[in-house]
């Protein structure tokens, strides 16, 4: 199986992706990999089962903000949320934005080797806080077990 990789400038991203959408290509996945700078690869498949050539569009970014392609391909929001959380790439205008809370990993930008290590101290504090709160809930459970059934049921907005 062959693959064709074309490298473009990140400002021309939306143009190129719209071009592929007009040719009725299917977006397979968005892959990110990061060493000195982050590179994103958008893989496409033409609408033909016997086509064995994969077309890949690649952009290289250091700290810029790029546009989301979820207006063109609506299902790209999951890939972009994952890349935003794990690699720290700034993407704006995602249709359903979890804002870094998709996986809730304790270390921010875990897959990016150039990230700063400032979040480690915060996680130590949260662990000790949850220990104290779990002890408090144990004492409460013993006292007020009869109050629980009244609070069940869906929330109303």
């Amino acid at each position, binding site marked *: *199986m062959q693959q064709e990789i074309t490298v473009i400038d990140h400002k021309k991203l939306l143009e190129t992706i719209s071009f592929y959408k007009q040719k009725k290509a299917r977006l397979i*996945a968005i892959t990110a*990999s990061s060493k000195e700078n982050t590179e994103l690869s958008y893989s496409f498949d033409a609408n033909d*089962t016997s086509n064995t050539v*994969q077309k890949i569009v690649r952009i290289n970014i250091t700290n810029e903000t790029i546009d989301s392609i979820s207006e063109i*391909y609506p*299902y790209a*929001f999951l890939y972009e949320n994952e890349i935003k959380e794990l690699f720290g790439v700034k993407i704006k205008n995602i249709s359903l934005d979890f804002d870094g809370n998709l996986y809730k990993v304790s270390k921010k930008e875990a897959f990016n080797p150039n990230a700063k290590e400032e979040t480690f101290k915060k996680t130590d504090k949260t662990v000790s806080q949850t220990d104290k709160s779990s002890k408090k809930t144990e004492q409460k459970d013993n006292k007020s077990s009869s109050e629980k059934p009244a609070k069940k049921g869906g*929330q*109303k907005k």
Partner: protein
Amino acid sequence: MSRTVIPFGPQHPVLPEPIHLDLVLEDEKVVEAIPRIGYVHRGLELLVQKKDFKQYVFVAERICGICSFMHGMGYCCAIENIMDIKVPERADFLRTLWSELSRMHSHMLWLGLWADAFGFESLFMHSWRLREKILDIFEQTTGGRVIFSVCEIGGVKKDIDAETLKNISSKIDEIKKDALEFSKVFYKDKTVAVRTVDVGILTKEQAFALGAVGPMARGSGLSQDLRSTGYAAYGQVDFEPIFETDGDCYARTAVRIREFFQSADIIKQCIGKMPEGEIRQKVTGKPNGEYFMRLEQPRGEVLYYAKANGTDFLDRVRVRTPTFANIPAMLETLKNSQLADVPLLILTIDPCISCTER
């Protein structure tokens, strides 16, 4: 009309996988669903910095328990394409044999869970009893029931002799006979039809616009099957991609049952055409380059990306599993459905959340 928000999952008696959905309801009809995943994230892609590229096969196999062999095979094929290694023909046929057996056991597992989702427990028990016979074949040939550890870079580790191949062929005949009885229940029983016909309809245009893969797309009329690209020994075996046009849960069940019987047919063709020869190729040197490899797992199309830089440790491995691609299609079918049908619609994409979150 007032709206209620019900949280569904990750622990729920009807839900088979740890996924969370916030269902916005109007009086028993679901208006919208907001997903949340991330309960079993293990960060397996980051382990590539600690295990060298030959040891990583064991990690790649353990991403998922049901489609475990194809994960190992996808990783090995990606590295073999980077290093330009040609796998011997007998190893290709053996890999195809184990892949199709994996597909059979995965579809039988799904049929059992599907029957359990609408309350038909005796059919669930019978399907899983039949699946045990396939797991016995795995243990006889590879040594493990679920995780095989038999695929490696350059070929396979264990060979199957001619007598065991004949044995497998006769066992497949028995399994087909038993499975024909159960499939008649799925096709004709009225209780099954009431729960599956016209539930969760996905039209052909919607399936293409949302990027659905696997039986989810083939049940709506898109004839997408990656086995036609001819990796491993699929170029030398005759088969046609199976698809149905209705787009509801009944059509997707029919696609999976027909694929089960098609896999049994492919296995018999492989056993008939198996060539003699070596099963592994010696691997020297270190990989340098990158490759995108695509395979057809039981749930759909999986993408494997590997990037190497000339040392023992790879730069990046990325797995994009079919359930990840089917989640937007699932959210679309959940709109305008009944609350009691929600677990059925989650099961119809064949979710495998441990694959999705790695």
